[in-house]
C-alpha cells in the first residue's frame, strides 16, 4: 500500500513535468490532476520494447557527498526498423521514492535543454517502474545518440556500524549494481564509484575479464568495475561498498521557504524553516561533554554537525536565527561588498539520529531581485534554494517555496531551473497578513528530493501589479481609521448619563 502511494505521488509529479509546456511556463490555473490521461494510454502490463541498444555506457556513482549522484553517459543506437523517440529507464519502486533531480541531456549538444521525462504507467505492485525519456527528435533506424542521464538518490546510505562512539570514525555502506540497470542490451559498460576519502575498507570483489584479474580496480578514492562485455537487458550484479565518511549526513526532511515581496517597502524578506536531522551513525554511548570539550582543542574531523554556512546573495541584511524556543545566539553574519555569509551553529553539536529544527531569515533590497518590464509587469528572479553550503552536501526531502507577492498581484507565471521531475505541485494561493483585505497572491511550489547542487538554480516569476492594487492598502487603512474616528465622535454625542436630580 505504501509503495503504491509513493508511486502514485511520483507518477503525478512526473506527469506534471510532462504536461508543462516545453519552454517551462506554468499557468497558475493549471491542474495537474487531469494530466494522467497522457500516460493512461499505455497498456497496464508494460514490457519495454527492445528498440535500442546501449553501445557504450559509463556509469558514475558518486558517493562523495551525503547523497548519491549517479550519472550515466550512454551511446544509444536504434536497432529497430523505424525511427524511435522513447528511451526507457528502469528504477525500483523504492528508488523512485528517493529519486530526485532526474535530468537527461544530449551530451553532444549541450545547448539543447533537458529532455522531457515522464513515468510509464503500469500496474502498481510490480517491483520495477519505468521512466520514459522523450527524445526531442526521433532517432532514425541505426542512428546513434549520446545521452547524459543524471539523478540523485537521497537517504541512500546505511551507517555500518550503526552505532559508534562520539570520537570514532563513521563508515557508510551503499549497495548498487555493478552492471548499470537497463532495459536494453548493453554492449560495453563500466561503473566508476567515487568516494570522498581513500579509506574504503570493504567492497564486493568480482571476477575480472580481459587482462584485468579482478574487479574493481582501486584508483585512489575511486573504484572502477568493468569494463564489462555485453550484458543482456535487465542484467544486475549487486555489489556493496563500505567507506569512511566522517562527516554529518545532513538530511532536511522539510524545508519551508517564504519569500515575501513588498513593493511599498522595496524589500524582499526571506524566511526558511528547516526540519533538519542527522542520518548518520547514532552514538553508542550517550553524549559526553568532557570528551567533546577536550576534542575541540585540536578541532578534529567529526561526524557531528557543528556549524553551517549560508552564503547569501550580496546585499542581504538583518539576518535572524531562531528555533522554537527563541533566538539562538551562536551565529555570525559577515556582510560586505563581496559576500554575505551567515554562519550558524546549532544549540548543541548534532550527532547521528539527533534532530535540530530551526528558522533563519533575512532581508534584501527589492532591486536586487525585482525588475520592471517594458509592458508594466514585474519580473522577480530569486534562487529556488539557498540552503547551507556544506562540503558534505545537504539533501532536501520536501521543499515548499512560497512566494508571497503583493496584494492584488495577478497574472502570475513562473519558470525554474530545477528539473521538472522534482517539482511535485505548484499553484497560486491567497495569503492573508498585515492589514490585508483580499489577501496576497502567493505562489506555492513544492519540490521533492532536491540536493544542494541545485543551489544556484533560479526561480523566475512574472506578474502584473496594477495601480489600483498598489493604492488599495493606504486607502483601506485611511478609510477604516476615519470610520473609527467618526464613529467614536458620534458615540461621544450620546449622553449616557441620567439627568441629574439636583
Amino acid at each position: 500500500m505504501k509503495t503504491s502511494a509513493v508511486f502514485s505521488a511520483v507518477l503525478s509529479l512526473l506527469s506534471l513535468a510532462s504536461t508543462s509546456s516545453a519552454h517551462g511556463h506554468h499557468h497558475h490555473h493549471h491542474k495537474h490532476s487531469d494530466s494522467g490521461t497522457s500516460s493512461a494510454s499505455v497498456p497496464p502490463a508494460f514490457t519495454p520494447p527492445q528498440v535500442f541498444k546501449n553501445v557504450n555506457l559509463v556509469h558514475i556513482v558518486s558517493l562523495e557527498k551525503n547523497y548519491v549522484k549517479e550519472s550515466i553517459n550512454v551511446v544509444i543506437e536504434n536497432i529497430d526498423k523505424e525511427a524511435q523517440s522513447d528511451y526507457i529507464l528502469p528504477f525500483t519502486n523504492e528508488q523512485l521514492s528517493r529519486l530526485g533531480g532526474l535530468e537527461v541531456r544530449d551530451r553532444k549538444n549541450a545547448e539543447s535543454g533537458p529532455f522531457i521525462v515522464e513515468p510509464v504507467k503500469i500496474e502498481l505492485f510490480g517491483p520495477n517502474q519505468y521512466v520514459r525519456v522523450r527524445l526531442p527528435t526521433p532517432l532514425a533506424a541505426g542512428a546513434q545518440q549520446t545521452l547524459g542521464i543524471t539523478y540523485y538518490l537521497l537517504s541512500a546510505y546505511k551507517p555500518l556500524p550503526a552505532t559508534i562512539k562520539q570520537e570514532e570514525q563513521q563508515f557508510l555502506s551503499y549497495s548498487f549494481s555493478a552492471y548499470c540497470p537497463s532495459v536494453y542490451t548493453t554492449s560495453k559498460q563500466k561503473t566508476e564509484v567515487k568516494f570522498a576519502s581513500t579509506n574504503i575498507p570493504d567492497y564486493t570483489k568480482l571476477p575480472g575479464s580481459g587482462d584485468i584479474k579482478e574487479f574493481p580496480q582501486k584508483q585512489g578514492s575511486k573504484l572502477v568495475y568493468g569494463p564489462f562485455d555485453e550484458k543482456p537487458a535487465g542484467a544486475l550484479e549487486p555489489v556493496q561498498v563500505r567507506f569512511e565518511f566522517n562527516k554529518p549526513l545532513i538530511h532536511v526532511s522539510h524545508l519551508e521557504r517564504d519569500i515575501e515581496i513588498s513593493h511599498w517597502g522595496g524589500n524582499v524578506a526571506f524566511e526558511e524553516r528547516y526540519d533538519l536531522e542527522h542520518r548518520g551513525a547514532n552514538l553508542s554511548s550517550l553524549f559526553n561533554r568532557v570528551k567533546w570539550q577536550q576534542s575541540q582543542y585540536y578541532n578534529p574531523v567529526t561526524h557531528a554537525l557543528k556549524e553551517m554556512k549560508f552564503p547569501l546573495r550580496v546585499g542581504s541584511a538583518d539576518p535572524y536565527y531562531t528555533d522554537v524556543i527563541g533566538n539562538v545566539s551562536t551565529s555570525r553574519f559577515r556582510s560586505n561588498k563581496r559576500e554575505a555569509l551567515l554562519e550558524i551553529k546549532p544549540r548543541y553539536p548534532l550527532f547521528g539520529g539527533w534532530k535540530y529544527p530551526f528558522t533563519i531569515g533575512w532581508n534584501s533590497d527589492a532591486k536586487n531581485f525585482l525588475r520592471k518590464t517594458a509592458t508594466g509587469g514585474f519580473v522577480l528572479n530569486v534562487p529556488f534554494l539557498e540552503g547551507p553550503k556544506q562540503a558534505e552536501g545537504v539533501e532536501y526531502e520536501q521543499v515548499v517555496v512560497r512566494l508571497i507577492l503583493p496584494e492584488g498581484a495577478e497574472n502570475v507565471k513562473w519558470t525554474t531551473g530545477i528539473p521538472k521531475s522534482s517539482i511535485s505541485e505548484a499553484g497560486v494561493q491567497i495569503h492573508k497578513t498585515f492589514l490585508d483585505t483580499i489577501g496576497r497572491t502567493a505562489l506555492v511550489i513544492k519540490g521533492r528530493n532536491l540536493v544542494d547542487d541545485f543551489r544556484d538554480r533560479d526561480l523566475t516569476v512574472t506578474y502584473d501589479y496594477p495601480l489600483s492594487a498598489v493604492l488599495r492598502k493606504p486607502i483601506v487603512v485611511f478609510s477604516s481609521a476615519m470610520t473609527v474616528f467618526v464613529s467614536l465622535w458620534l458615540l461621544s454625542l450620546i449622553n449616557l448619563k441620567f439627568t441629574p436630580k439636583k
Partner: protein
Amino acid sequence: MDQSVNDSEPLQQPAPPRGSTNHQITAIMSADSLERLAVAGKGDSTRTLLRVIILLLIAGAAISSRLFSVIRFESIIHEFDPWFNFRATKYLVANGFYKFWDWFDDRTWHPLGRVTGGTLYPGLMVTSGVIYHALRALSIPVDIRNVCVLLAPAFSGLTAYAAYLLTNEMTPSSSAGLLAAIFMGIAPGYISRSVAGSYDNEAIAIFLLVFTFYLWIKALKLGSMLWGALCALFYGYMVASWGGYAFITCLLPLHAFVLICMGRYSTRLYVSYTSWYALGTLASMQIPFVGFLPVKTSEHMPALGIFGFLQLLAFLDYVRSAIPSRQFQTFLWVFAGSVFGIGLTGLVIATSAGYIAPWGGRFYSLWDTGYAKIHIPIIASVSEHQPTAWPAFFFDLNMLIWLLPAGIYLCYQKLADEHVFVIVYALFGSYFAGVMVRLMLTLTPVVCVAAAIALSTILDTYLKAKSPIPEEHLVEEPTDGTSKKVSKPGLRASSKPYIGIYATFSKVTVAGAMTAYLLMFVAHCTWVTSNAYSSPSVVLASRMPDGSQHIIDDYREAYQWLRQNTKDDAKIMSWWDYGYQIGGMADRPTLVDNNTWNNTHIATVGKAMASREEVSYPIMRQHEVDYILVVFGGLLGYSGDDINKFLWMVRIAEGIWPDEVKEREFFTPRGEYRVDAGATDTMKNSLMYKMSYHNYNNLFPPGQAQDRVRGVRLPDDGGPVLNSIEEAFTSENWIIRIYKVKDLDNLGRDHASASAFERGQKKKKVIKKKGPRVLRVD
C-alpha cells in the same frame, strides 16, 4: 462604639464642605473621556489636551522603560512561572476557551496530572487570547509570544492611568494625578513584576487592583450603584487574574469598617459596599479555582461580616427613624451586642466544625514570619516569600518611601472617606510589604498616590503662591485647605508679600531640590530596572575579554536537546523550580513543577535527589522517570544551582520522611555544609551530589577540579560513580546536566554489580592489549 459616636462630632464638621466641594471637583476633574470630549472647546480644552498628551507620554515612558530585556536580549518569556502562563496561553489560543476551561494536563505532575483549567487564574491567559484574536481579526498577524511578552508593559501604561484617576479622587490638585501616574509608571516596585517578558498574573493584576480601588472610591463618594457594580466587575476580573485579589477582599471591608467606627456610616457606604460585595462575590465564584472559597474560608470572612454588619446598621438606621431615641439606645446595645456575639460564635463553631476553612499556611506566614520555615518549608524555600530587608524599600521605591508619611499626613489633614482609604491601605500594605518581599508590589500603588499628593502639595504651595492677594481668590478651589495648613499661619497674617514661601529664594530652593530629587528618582528607577529587573534568567549575559556581550544559553540548549532528541513522553525529573520551564521549552512531562500544590510529590523528588542511588532508583522506576535534569553552576560560578538549593530538597523530604532523610547528616560534625573532601558520606552518596560532580574532574588536570560557586577544590578520587543512571547530555557551560535512567539489567543483576562488571572487563581488555606489546619490545 461609644468612642466612635463621640469622635464623629468634631469630625463631622469637615465633612459637609467636603461633600459639596467633592461634587464640584468631580464635575471638573472627572476623567471620563466622553465628558472631556464634551468639555473640549470650552476653554479647558488646552488643559485637557495637555493632560492627555502628558498621560500618553507617561504611558510611553512606562512601556519603554520595561523593554530593556527585549532590547538587550530578545522577546523572550522570563523566569519560571511565566513559562507556564505562556504554555497555558498557547493552549487556550490553539484549543479555544471551553477546552481550556476543562483542560486536564497529563504532562505535569506525572503520574497524577493536574486539572489545570480548574486550578489556575485564567484572567491573564484570556486577556492575551482576546488581544491575540482581536489583532488577528484586524489581520495583524502577531505571534502569541509577542503578545505575552509585551502584555505587562502595555498594562503598566494602563496602571499609570488608573493611578492618575485614583489620585484625582484624593486631591483637587491636577498635578498630583499626573505625578502619581509617572510614579506608578516607573517605580521599580512595580517594574519588578512587569518588565517585558514577565508574563505573570501580576502583569495585569496591578492595573486591576488600582482600577478597582478607583472604582470603589468613586462608588463610595457618589453612593452610586452603577460605580459599585463596575467596581464589582473589575473585582471579578481581578479575582480571575491573581490570587492577590484577597487583598481587595480584605481591604475594602476594612475601609468600610474603619469608616463605620469613625461614625461615618452613610447610605453611600451602604449602597457602594453592598453592590460591590453582592455582585463581586458572585463574580468571583464563577472562577472554578475560587468556587465556594468566598463563603468557606477565613480570608473571605471579613468581607461577609462587614456585609452583614452594614445590613444591621441599615436596619438600625431605619429603627432609629421609627422609635424614640432613648429606647433606641437600649435597643441598639441589646441588638448589636447579641448579633455580634451570635455571629462570632457562629463563625468559631463553623470554623471548628470544618465548614469554614481556617487561615491557610501562607496567611499564617503573614502573621508569623517564622511559621513557614518550621511548618511549610516549601513556602519558605521560595525567595520571594522571605521577609523584606529594609533596604529593599529604598531600592524599590526610592524617594517615594519618605514621601509616603508626608502624603499620609496630608490625608489626615483632610480625612474624607477616600483619605481614610489611603491611610488604611498604606498601613495594611506597609505591614504586608514588610512581611513578604513580593507584597512590595501591593504597597507600591498607595505609595505612589501618597507621594504624589505630598509632592504636588509642596510644589503647588511653592510654585502657585504668587502673592497673597490673588491667592485668596485662587485658594478657594484648586488648593483649598492643604496649602493653608502647610504654609503655616504666615499666609493670612503676613502683609509683606516677599517673605516665607513667596520669596523667590525659597521657591527656587524648594523647586530645585524637588527637581533634583525627581531626577535622581528617574535615574534610580532606570538603573534598578536595567540592572536588577531586566534579566530573563533563562538567558545569562556575560562579557567577553574584548567587552562584547556573550550570551550563556545553557538552559535553552539543554531544553531544546530534550525537546528534539528524547521521545515525546519521556518523563523528566528535576527540582520543581524547572518544572514550568521544562514544560514550556522542552515540552516534556515533568514530575513536579512550580505549581507546588502537592507537597508529598515534591518531597518524593526531594527524597530521590537526597538519597543513595539504591534508594532513588526504585522511586524513579515507580514514577517512570526517563531523564533527570540537574542544574550545576560549579564550572561557571552560577550560584543559583541545585547544590545550593539542595538543603531545601532535604528539608522538604524530611518533612514527609523524617526517618529516611535527615538534614543533619548533610552537615559535617562541625555544622558545615561542604561539598569538597570534607563532605559527609550522606552528602557524597546522594544522587544530587553524584549527578552534579559526575565526570567533572576529568575536565581538569588531576587534582585541580574546582567548584567555582562554593570556591572549593574537589577531592581527587576519580569523582562520583553512577551505576543506575548515565550521563545523557551536558550543556556547554555545564549548567544543565541531564542523566538517563538505565533500564533494568538484562541479566537481572543490580546496577552496581553490572556496571562494576563492565568497568572491570574494560580494564582487563586494556591490559590484554598492552600485554603482547610488552612482549614484542622484549
